[in-house]
């Protein structure tokens, strides 16, 4: 324990001495700060700031760091040392954050009398590299101290990992979300008040019910709720029909169904909306056709509830399918066979055995669809028209003519409570009601085939829907090659050339308008994906393999960010990270962070699933053989989790590229993302370029997925080669 603590102590001291305490111009990696690490008041390290630049409060908050150093030098009793380290490093963390919150960019917020003099009144900017190094060192000295007290079985690595993830989730999920609460209660003059909140909260714009008795629109909350319930029900029904066909019939094209489930994952969320406009919009293909041949008037019916609803059904049915195929397969065939041997016919078997067993799964799929619909931003933005829902209202109250962050925060609270409510319902009510009937024991037998009427019904719903999906997707490709949709359908590459032209005349110059955002997107996604994977799988490891106090709270809070809609996260990030001490808006770091913590639950879920497949005694064997938990993770768990790691990598990469809701608040001129660029084109009515760009994104993601699949495939081959080699040598010996 002492050794680990000393390492972190040295890192902390280096951070305080040789790294710039504040954010530096041009970013840390420009290394422009090196020259002024002591002399320049902007770039100086913490000790230098304190000693030479009148920032005395930095010295005070660094005293605990000196304290732990002294403790490590002079306290020989391990238990006592651990106690001291814990207490002092807690003080250190508190002091560092306290000074960060008290002294803002414009001077001290409270205790102003203490902070008189030039530096105190001048204020300070956000934490920089030095501050983060010191914070991490204090955090890990704290966890090491805890492990020294015998917590977490005295395992410094495990306690450190728990500490790290708890603080990361705390700082990047709970801290920003709590800002929303504060913002919602904040009056126009910055005073906290309930009146403002209740005005906003009870506004008829949110809760109005006028649509019930007169031709007027209802409040956004009702709109969102109604849409979400409809979408949840619709996707669950369609998903169930697809799942039944995939498992209970000898339908030929089952593999095609699998493909249909992947495509929406790699589709940016508003693209389906765009395709629907191309089909059913005022100048859409179908609308034109109906007008020309049947005199059906061209209307704007698509822009409103029906448009969003169809788009959401298209987008989220695959998710319901993925959930329900597991549920349908999870009903043990022997139960159905038992029912049939007891003289139940196929309908009775389905009605009284299979269906009741599936019910919790269906409820789960419904709630998932509900949450997805609530959180959906892309489709309502493109197709919403006058049907305003919470997620887009939040966006418009931030970027609208009059930015009203109080209103945005209030709407965010309404949205958050609805999704969290659904999430809690799912966890508490369904958590206990699992009828998963397939056990580890071999369960042979065949699923009962469907009753003909039911099968007919399934086919009748799914086949048209599948065809519709295919048409919608072909629209996307088709639309990118025509000049001006609805007016001039002549073939052209113009959109691609505008977006992705390259000029070779003097060297290679990427002259297309989309290149900037394309490269930014790829870079940020490729940085975010491995980080998401690491955080997600590390959390999964702790949840599956370790026992510690507060584990349930820990699990709940890591899964929580799944239920926080992207728009809410986006708003909370700009509210929280626009001011010191953690100032990140306008940087690429904030984009990476938002991806990591939004997609983390996916990594956690995947990791939990993969890790539950690994026999726990493998870890225990490694540990009893004298390996510590870090070595065990490195040599046993990571190698055995290969496929899960790749899956998590792929998924978080793809989610980062297709994400739009949170990102749209956080992009800057310098760091623009593909999706927000496309949204911008859509808002300008440049559908051609938007669709061309979307097509390129889809192709990019497909190639990445195929590449990763290829790597996994190769791994498997190598193993088979090995086995083949062995059998050959065996034959040779014989």
């Amino acid at each position, binding site marked *: 324990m002492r050794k680990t603590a000393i390492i972190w102590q040295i890192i902390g001291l280096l951070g305080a001495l040789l790294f710039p305490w504040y954010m530096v111009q041009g970013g840390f990696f420009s290394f422009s700060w090196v020259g002024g690490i002591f002399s320049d008041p902007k770039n100086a390290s913490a000790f230098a700031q304190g000693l030479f630049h009148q920032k005395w409060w930095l010295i005070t908050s660094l005293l605990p760091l000196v304290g732990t150093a002294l403790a490590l030098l002079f306290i020989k009793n391990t238990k006592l040392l651990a106690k001291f380290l814990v207490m002092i490093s807690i003080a250190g963390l508190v002091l560092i954050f306290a000074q960060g919150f008290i002294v803002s960019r414009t001077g001290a917020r409270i205790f102003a009398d203490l902070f008189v003099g030039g530096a105190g009144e001048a204020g300070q900017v956000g934490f920089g590299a030095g501050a983060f190094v010191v914070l991490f060192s204090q955090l890990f000295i704290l966890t090491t101290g805890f492990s020294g007290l015998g917590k977490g079985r005295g395992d410094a690595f495990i306690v450190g990992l728990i500490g790290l993830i708890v603080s990361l989730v705390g700082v990047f999920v709970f801290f920003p979300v709590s800002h929303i609460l504060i913002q919602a209660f904040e009056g126009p003059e910055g005073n906290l008040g309930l009146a403002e909140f209740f005005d906003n909260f009870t506004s008829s714009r949110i809760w109005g019910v006028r649509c019930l008795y007169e031709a007027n629109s209802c409040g956004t909350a009702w709109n969102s709720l109604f849409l979400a319930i409809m979408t949840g029900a619709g996707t669950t029904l369609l998903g169930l029909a697809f799942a039944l066909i995939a498992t209970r019939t000898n339908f030929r094209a089952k593999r095609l169904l699998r493909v249909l489930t992947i495509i929406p994952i790699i589709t940016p969320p508003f693209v389906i909306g765009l395709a629907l406009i191309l089909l059913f919009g005022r100048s859409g293909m179908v609308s034109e056709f109906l007008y020309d041949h049947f005199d059906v008037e061209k209307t704007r019916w698509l822009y409103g509830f029906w448009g969003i609803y169809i788009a959401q059904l298209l987008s989220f049915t695959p998710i319901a399918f993925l959930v329900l195929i597991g549920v349908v397969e999870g009903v043990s065939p022997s139960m159905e066979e038992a029912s049939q041997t007891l003289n139940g016919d196929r309908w009775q078997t389905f009605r009284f055995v299979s269906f009741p067993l599936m019910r919790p799964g269906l409820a789960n799929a419904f709630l998932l669809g509900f949450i997805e619909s609530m959180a959906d931003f892309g489709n309502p933005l493109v197709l919403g028209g006058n049907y305003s829902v919470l997620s887009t209202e939040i966006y418009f109250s931030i970027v609208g003519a009059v930015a009203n962050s109080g209103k945005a925060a209030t709407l965010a609270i309404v949205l958050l409570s609805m999704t969290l409510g659904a999430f809690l319902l799912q966890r508490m009510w369904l958590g206990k009601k699992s009828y998963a009937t397939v056990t580890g024991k071999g369960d042979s037998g065949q699923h009962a085939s469907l009753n003909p009427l039911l099968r007919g019904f399934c086919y009748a719903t799914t086949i048209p829907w599948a065809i519709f999906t295919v048409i919608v997707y072909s629209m996307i490709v088709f639309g990118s090659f025509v000049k001006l949709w609805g007016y001039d359908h002549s073939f052209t590459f113009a959109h691609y050339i505008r977006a992705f032209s390259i000029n070779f005349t003097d060297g290679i110059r990427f002259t297309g308008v989309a290149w900037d955002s394309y490269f930014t997107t790829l870079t940020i996604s490729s940085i975010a994906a491995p980080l998401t994977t690491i955080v997600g799988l590390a959390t999964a490891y702790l949840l599956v393999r370790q026992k510690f106090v507060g584990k349930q709270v820990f699990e709940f809070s890591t899964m929580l960010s799944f239920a926080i809609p992207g728009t809410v996260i986006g708003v909370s990030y700009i509210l929280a990270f626009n001011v010191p001490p953690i100032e990140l808006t306008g940087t690429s770091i904030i984009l990476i962070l938002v991806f990591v913590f939004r997609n983390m639950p996916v990594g956690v879920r995947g990791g939990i699933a993969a890790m539950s497949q690994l026999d726990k*005694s493998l870890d225990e064997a490694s540990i009893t053989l004298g390996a510590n938990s870090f070595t065990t993770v490195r040599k046993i768990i990571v190698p055995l989790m290969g496929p899960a790691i790749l899956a998590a990598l792929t998924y978080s990469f793809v989610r980062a590229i297709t994400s739009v809701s949170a990102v749209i608040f956080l992009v800057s001129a310098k760091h623009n993302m593909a999706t927000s660029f496309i949204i911008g084109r859509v808002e300008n009515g440049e559908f051609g370029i938007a669709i061309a760009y979307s097509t390129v994104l889809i192709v990019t993601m497909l190639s990445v997925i195929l590449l990763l699949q290829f790597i996994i495939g190769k791994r498997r081959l190598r193993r088979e080669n090995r086995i083949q080699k062995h059998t050959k040598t065996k034959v040779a010996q014989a």
Partner: protein
Amino acid sequence: MSNNQITGSVRFENVVKNYGSVVALKDLTLDIVPGELVTLLGPSGCGKTTTLRLIAGLEAATGGNIFIGNDNVTHLSATYRNVSMVFQSYALFPHMSVLDNVAYGLKVSSIPKKEAYDKARDGLAMVGLKGYDERLPSELSGGQQQRVAVARAVVLEPEVLLLDEPLSNLDAKLRRQVREQIRQIQQRLSLTTVYVTHDQEEAMAVSDRIIVMKNAEIAQIGTPMDLYNTPNSKFIADFIGDANVIDCEVSAIKSGIATVEIPGAKLKILTNQTTNFNASLVIRPQNVSLEQASKKAGIKGTVTYAAYLGNQIQYTLDSAIGELFVVDNNMADMFKVGSDVDIILNEKKLVLVSK
């Protein structure tokens, strides 16, 4: 007291283990002598595996102290305890070759690579798997995997070797062979070994001493012979070997001999109790002989079930003292179902246990 202990002993002092409100071990105190093979035996949920995992350091004790050798290891994590364990599922690392599996513990203890592999090869030779170095675990049979697991645990030269139901995944014939091999290796290296099983025959076959556990407590400790011949409770009598446990009335105890009354007979049975107590009578199936029914007074019974097994005949009887299970080695003639018999008990072999 701890000064005169040497490497390889295990001592529990008032160890308690709770999982939330569930008590897995209540106040366990036990001593394991260096070099002996002790079996933890008991029905599932009795706390035997918990005890083993506490020695390994895979679980943390809720209270009490655990010593290995002279060291108090109660708060030491598994990594730093000098014990190694053979798991029920073997837990061979599927992505490593047999040799890498066996060398793993040596390598992570920073023993030079060459030495680690040499020792690992010796270990494989010891369990009779020379030349299997490069195989993957999936390419071995169950018995071979089991031996790799033993080699992997033994090459570390642990103070204590722990075996968690090591034979449960093998078929019956292989089981006897492997348990003999484990016992031989254990005696050759004089390794302190703690062995968990729920199979009493297996426990009798390998152990120096057996610790029988029940409901998170020790029910009885003793050599296999002690447990079979002088069970201290109804539970032990029933659990170790087959036994008929019959209600009886103790009418008097005089100089170590109890007078016991059951319907149809009055028996004199050795006991270490001095005062009258509430007792049950333990009758082993082979300590009963059957005779053709006669007019004599005695215990009468009727055969309700008879099975011919080649080397013995098993009967179930309905009698005045309750249902009796009897093993008869007299193969010459066999009683038919429904025949009436006289039941004769071998008084010297009967045991009294408290109710």
